[in-house]
């Protein structure tokens, strides 16, 4: 555990110093909501439209962030320095994925209120607890796949393109699950109940991909 927490602390500290990931994602999300506000030409959105706008925006913001996950590691061979230590490569992946999850959470602290202000109607306040639950599960999936795909694309040419090309299809089940789960929360007459089936699917996806990513990540790092 200690190497993982040391690595995690390194990730968070690096982000704090360089501010590569979080501000870009947050800015992108808020700007996109503004664009939607004007583009959709509605005062408020609800139901499946609201859920769709929220999740598509968060997903694209996540792809933007995922592009930059390994930038500091690639400079000066810093990641190799870590690889020289007797540390399980899995710890590297876990630290990266947990850090990405934290970054997504920080972005959502800004983006979700912006979403409420710009796009949702006044009655949507009671959606918050359910929304939090969906955010946690969906963010876990995005963090896992984002860290994995970013690790794959990081030392290739056309890295930006590859992260999106690989990440978006893989994350489609998360979008489907998250959007379906969030739709009743944004219903016009007040938040409905959280559909258990979709939460279960999100959870299952997180579990399966978490295991696969952990099994496979070593192979990305050993030369």
């Amino acid at each position, binding site marked *: 555990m*200690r*190497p993982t927490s*040391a*690595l995690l602390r*390194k990730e968070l*500290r*690096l982000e704090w*110093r*360089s501010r590569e990931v979080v501000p870009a994602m947050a800015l992108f999300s808020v700007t996109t909501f503004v664009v939607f506000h004007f583009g959709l030409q509605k005062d408020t959105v609800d139901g499946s439209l609201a859920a769709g706008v929220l999740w598509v925006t968060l997903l694209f913001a996540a792809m933007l962030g995922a592009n930059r996950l390994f930038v*500091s*590691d690639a*400079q*000066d*061979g*810093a990641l*190799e*320095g*870590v*690889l*020289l*230590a*007797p*540390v399980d490569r899995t710890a590297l992946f876990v630290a990266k994925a947990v850090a990405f999850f934290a970054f997504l959470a920080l972005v959502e602290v800004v983006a979700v209120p912006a979403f409420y202000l710009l796009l949702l109607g006044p009655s949507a306040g009671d959606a918050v607890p359910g929304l939090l639950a969906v955010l946690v599960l969906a963010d876990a999936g995005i963090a896992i796949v984002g860290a994995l795909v970013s690790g794959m694309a990081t030392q290739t040419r056309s890295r930006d393109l590859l992260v999106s090309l690989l990440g978006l299809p893989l994350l489609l089940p998360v979008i489907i699950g998250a959007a379906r789960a969030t739709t009743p929360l944004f219903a016009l007459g007040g938040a409905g109940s959280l559909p258990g089936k979709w939460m279960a699917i999100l959870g299952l996806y997180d579990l399966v991909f978490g295991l696969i990513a952990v099994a496979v990540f070593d192979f990305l790092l*050993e*030369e």
Partner: protein
Amino acid sequence: MPSPPSPASPAIELDALERRYGERVALAGVSLTLPAGATLLVLGPNGAGKSTLLRVLATLLRPHGGSVRVLGDELPERAWAVRRRIGYLGHEPLLYRDLSARENLTLHARLHKVAAARVEELLADVGLAARADDPLHTYSRGMVQRCAIARTVLHDPALVLLDEPRANLDPGAAEILEPLLAGRTRVVTSHDPAEAERADVVLGLRAGRPHDLEGLYAT
């Protein structure tokens, strides 16, 4: 403190080591034995494979053929066990430039399970104590190299692998290197054939293969 290999067992044993890049040969037919405590000098022109050889020994690259034994452990199967006991100083510092020297070294200390006090000692030894909390990107190249040296010996490795160690050092710092390396088995690469006098074993490499020292640099 790592247990050094017993005097009888060699620090490095290579037999027909091979490493390819696609169809191109990066290393081939490299065989040697290096006794514990001795110094190996690897000479050769650019592109000869010196850095590749060091990286294989450092467990950063897998051998594609032949056998490699470092400190008694077979690579790549026992890479895990070997990493504790080797230190590698490459062309790049292998440090995070947005973090300070202290933060970088503390990270490596935690990863190698070395006490935090050792970080402070080393910072003093390499002369970085005054600027230990400034991010590495504010350092001069010589200072970065000093921090890299500290990283290399932080966990008290029995074997150190140094890829052109004098390349980025500022003149005053050349003295700090020797005491930190004392007593360790070393593999050093260099362009300068004159250094062969101070080495115990010398390996000449040309286009990835072992070569006699005469005519090593012939065109």
